[in-house]
């Protein structure tokens, strides 16, 4: 298979984050298997990609701050905290589910 191949993933937003992404909670995406350097794409790459390509809302800082997912957002890879999976360095696999959850504080 060619290195230009795309891999299908599902990206979801909840806890209010969906408002930054056209109010859509679930996005079926096809992302390149390799980045511009030829390395396997990671969740870190995906965060940048979402910010640049998917997010139409101007308030980028509500999603990414200082180059990292902003505090108060949990990132889950196949329903596990991304800290259990290598965080931003995790290499995306076909059919992965990446969930971004904004922590709620109301009660």
């Amino acid at each position, binding site marked *: 298979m060619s290195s230009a191949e795309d891999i299908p993933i599902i990206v*979801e937003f*909840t*806890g*209010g*984050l969906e*408002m*930054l992404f056209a109010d859509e*909670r*679930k996005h079926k995406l096809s992302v390149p298997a390799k980045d511009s350097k030829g390395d396997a794409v990671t969740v870190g790459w995906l965060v940048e990609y979402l910010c640049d390509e998917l997010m139409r809302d101007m*308030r980028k*800082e*509500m999603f990414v*701050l200082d180059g990292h997912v*902003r*505090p*108060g*957002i*949990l990132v*889950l890879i196949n*329903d*596990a*905290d991304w*800290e*259990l999976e290598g965080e931003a360095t995790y290499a995306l696999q076909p059919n992965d589910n990446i*969930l971004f*959850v*904004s*922590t*709620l*504080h*109301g*009660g």
Partner: protein
Amino acid sequence: VTHEKWPLAAEDYKRYGRQMIVPNIGIQGQLRLKNASVLIVGAGGLGCPAAAYIAGAGVGTIGIVDGDEVETSNLHRQILHSTSKVGMKKVDSAILYLKSLNPNLKYNAHTSHLTPENSQGIVSQYDLVLDCTDHPTSRYLISDICVLLQKPLVSASALRTDGQLIVLNSPPLLAGNEAGGPCYRCVFPKPPPAESVVSCGDGGILGPVVGVMGVLQALEATKLIASGKLTSSGSEEAKKDASMLLFSTNSNPPFRSVRLRSRRPKCFACSAEAGLTLEGLSSGSLDYVLFCGINVPVSIL
């Protein structure tokens, strides 16, 4: 464990009979509930249903902390209060209701907000804490004092159509013991930017959404107590990762359980390198408001 032949009062067998026959509860579980004390921080949309079911289940001592008064805008979701109680302290209103539901328990009213100064005195009186508050400052404060006093913490939150639930510091082992459950700071080491924090007052909330989360808090509390897992000695099971329950009314499926990390090796509160102390906390050297930033929501998220 009691050795009397009839360890419960005659009325208790009638009142709690339907839950005592549930597998895993039994007389043993009912006695644990009777001997347990639970602190509910916040008598709002989460605290109301949580308190109702915890009192229904027969938890012997129930404390409620809240400095607010009942407002008409609360009533769509804060179901222990009532129209005639608008203006009354929420804690007093809630306890009036709870006494009419179950007069056989001890209720403690704490009618000011939890602060770094008063938190040790209040929380130390209880076995288990429910965080039913609505701001990051209180969530970090409650987690910190629970770690310091080794109390398990059932934390929930809700906004608009979504809710979240997590059991923290369970088992409630000493800071530095990696077999203890993670604390709020393990999961959220940095507070969210203040402008990203939205309250139910500003963002809105569906009553049954916060209601479901509050009832689930009562369920987690009941299970922890009845199974004898309140203390570290009671929790002999293999260490499990913590998990968080996510609820989104409009998602399919609406409920989702996700796996969280265990204690964070450098956690400020619960690790061997923790900088948190009772003295530091109660002296006010930890400024939770400063830590979390100003509280003027300028954004809808």
